[in-house]
């Protein structure tokens, strides 16, 4: 694999001081690829295997292949892209029974939790459900006092009847306090063996969407914990003292301990990893990607390192979640027929993905030998395009997006902008980013309707390379 460009966006590379190395592994349905990168994002080793076993054995094999014993001490992070955490979403719905606690009475009772869920999914996950007093208004004041007694009673009702609890509060995305207190009560009563999934950092405005996301995450938490535990064991078995992260659909990472409770983060990871990986390989943070890795061609775009979103929220099995959807256009199955009907659809998808972005590169990723045969379409084929997903994982960054309303009672508009930037920065750090290297993107003002008073909806994303363990950084200060 050739030397790659600096993935840190021009920030002076710390390779000279021995910044930690990382391994990225993309475990696909058919093939598993892996890349070892050094501190400046240069590939030091790579490998490909057919996928013949579950994610943990595949990870162990891949780590043995790309990390020679002499290099084990260099590796501080392992980043995995896998869809294994969400297999329970499909029949036969291996989902745990979930208790659902909503904090928002006396409001919100008109739409109970799990309203409109497909019957077979609801039947699989529905455990005890309760709406209790509490929550916050738009201006941060409490809607009602938190009904701790009712939460305790509910917790006792859950014992033995639910494998996990999903907690969502009205206004939770503005103030996590009530969800966190509820989590404390539930943990006290139910013990550490019952995961409690809060929803306050799962998205912006939309209680039902955050609640649905938390229910899915809670229902998948058992399987997700088993999977991340096995992956962590594989890392140790490979002789590595490294932190484990998992890739998500936006092409960014989350620490394994958090992914155990937020399995939906991993939806779309394969394509997300491929997109961010090829962008870094080419040194083009703005581009269109044609991904031939899967059964169907997928086309999406990235602008300044951030995926272009569809503006819609992700629907999972017919249930609306809080996950912002990357705009991914399916474009049929690749075939070798040059200029055939299948390519019209692909080129239309490429045009659409890049609409409004001007002339930008179009990159093709996927196994060598697949993809369009014609050479005159101007598409870019990096020689390591088949490893784009693994490289994307190896160089994956942590990010957080803030999308919320600010009322001018909060302060002047400029103070609101600064508050949004800080919240995004803090979120990126919680997701694993190095606080010294977090980049905060442009703050976008989103549109509002029917507002009778000064307020603004601000959206901003902060991203940064994964934090290095302090022992390594300290050694080279």
């Amino acid at each position, binding site marked *: 694999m050739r030397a790659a460009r600096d993935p840190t966006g021009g920030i002076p590379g710390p390779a000279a001081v021995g910044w930690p190395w990382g391994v990225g592994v993309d475990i696909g349905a058919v093939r598993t690829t892996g890349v070892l990168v050094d501190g400046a994002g240069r590939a030091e080793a790579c490998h490909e295997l057919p996928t013949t076993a579950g994610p943990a054995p595949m990870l162990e094999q891949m780590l043995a292949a790309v990390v020679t014993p002499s290099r084990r001490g260099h590796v501080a992070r392992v980043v995995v892209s896998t869809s294994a955490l969400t297999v329970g979403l499909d029949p036969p719905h291996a989902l745990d029974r979930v208790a659902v606690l909503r904090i928002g009475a006396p409001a919100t009772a008109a*739409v109970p939790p799990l309203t409109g869920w497909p019957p077979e999914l609801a039947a699989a996950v529905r455990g005890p459900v309760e709406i209790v007093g509490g929550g916050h*208004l*738009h201006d941060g004041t409490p809607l009602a006092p938190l009904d701790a007694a009712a939460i305790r009673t509910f917790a006792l009702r859950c014992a033995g009847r639910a494998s996990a609890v999903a907690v969502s509060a009205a206004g939770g995305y503005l103030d996590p306090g009530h969800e966190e207190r509820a989590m404390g009560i539930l943990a006290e009563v139910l013990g550490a063996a019952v995961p409690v999934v809060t929803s306050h950092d799962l998205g912006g405005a939309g209680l039902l969407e955050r609640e649905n996301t938390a229910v899915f995450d809670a229902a998948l938490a058992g399987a997700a914990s088993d999977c991340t535990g096995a992956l962590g064991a594989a890392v140790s078995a490979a002789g590595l003292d490294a932190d484990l992260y998992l890739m998500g659909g936006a092409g960014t990472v989350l620490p394994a301990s958090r992914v155990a409770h937020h399995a939906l983060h991993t939806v779309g990871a394969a394509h997300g990893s491929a997109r961010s990986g090829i962008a870094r390989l080419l040194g083009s943070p703005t581009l269109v990607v044609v991904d031939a890795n899967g059964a169907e061609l997928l086309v999406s775009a990235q602008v300044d390192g951030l995926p272009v979103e569809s503006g819609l929220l992700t629907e999972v099995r017919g249930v609306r979640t809080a996950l912002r959807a990357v705009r991914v256009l399916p474009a049929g199955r690749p075939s070798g027929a040059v200029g055939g009907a299948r390519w019209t659809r692909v080129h239309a998808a490429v045009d659409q993905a890049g609409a409004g972005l001007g002339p930008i590169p179009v990159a093709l990723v996927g196994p060598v030998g697949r993809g369009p045969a014609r050479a005159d379409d101007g598409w870019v084929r990096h020689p390591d395009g088949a490893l784009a997903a693994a490289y994307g994982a190896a160089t994956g960054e942590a990010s957080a997006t803030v999308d919320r309303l600010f009322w001018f009672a909060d302060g002047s508009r400029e103070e609101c902008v600064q508050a949004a930037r800080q919240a995004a920065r803090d979120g990126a750090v919680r997701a694993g980013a190095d606080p010294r290297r977090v980049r905060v993107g442009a703050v976008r003002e989103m549109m509002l309707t029917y507002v009778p008073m000064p307020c603004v909806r601000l959206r901003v994303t902060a991203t940064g390379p994964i934090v290095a363990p302090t022992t390594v950084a300290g050694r080279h200060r």
Partner: protein
Amino acid sequence: MRRITVDDVDDLVRGAVVLGGGGGGDPYLARQMLLAALERFGPVTLVDAADLDPASLVLPVLSAGVPSALVEMFHGEHESTRLRALFETVAEGTCSAVLPVQLGAVNAVAPIVAAAQLGLPCLDADVMRRCFPMVEMTLLALGGLSPSPVVMVDSRGSSVVLAATDQATVSRLLRSAMPHLGLVALISTYRLTAKTCAELAPRGGLTGCIRIGRALRDCPPGSDHAPLLELCSGRLLVSGVVSEITQRTTDGFPRGVVSIEATEDVPTGTAARMVRIDFQNENLVVAEDGVVAVTVPDLINLIDVDSGTVMQTVDVAVGQRVHVVAIPVDERWHTPEGIALVGPRAFGLDVDPVRVGSA
């Protein structure tokens, strides 16, 4: 006897979004509210005003609120009961049915939900024929009725009764109360008997939404939406790609512009047509290359070409391919009095009204 059942939910909400004209609130929440109410209370009976005791009052129901607040703190179970009790006290009468006021996703649903909770029938009628943002923008006001007294309740036990002799003051009082109610309230406004309702409120509002929703179902994604346009006597004005969306808050109200590059049906070598849509809460004016093509009070909608989704304008994204569709609204809005109340200048836009099909 017509009833609204769970099987009508998707069609009704989908059709109501069209009447929202780019606004009208979050369709997902509206769908969930209606589904939950019908699952809990069973089907809701639809009636005409002529079927009711003429001397009885009707209960107009409106969900007022900022969509971003409503999706967090949507209504509880008891607002409709408290609203009815307070309204009947203030209006000194008994309500025999619920009256929809505004048609858009949230407010086509809110009155049906209230009817379900109260065990009352719901009138298959409304008094705006689409979504307008102010309580004085109704055919009732056009007919000489005052919105006063306005009764507002929130989920937490607060209630407000307000009245004024002029409609602008009513609106300002209403808006001033909203922040103290958490920006979400259930409202009744206009005191009218079933007899007056039969005279002033056009019939068929809710069943009309269902028919529009069904016609939309018959429009495959990527099509030119002929079934919808035929049903509503509408026109597909132009199709193109959204190139820019801006919004600014000047006089306290957000004013937005969507810019679209219309590339379809343009001869090669010619520049794309530039289409501009001015909106506030709903879409207000469409102009092509600087020439006004359609304005409010007629309905202007943006429809996503690939999915066929009728868009809330605030959700439109740069790069999205959209159809711009215009649908004529009730004739009464096109009278001089109607235009004074809901024409472009009523929204602060200094252009003459242009009707669908006249440009």
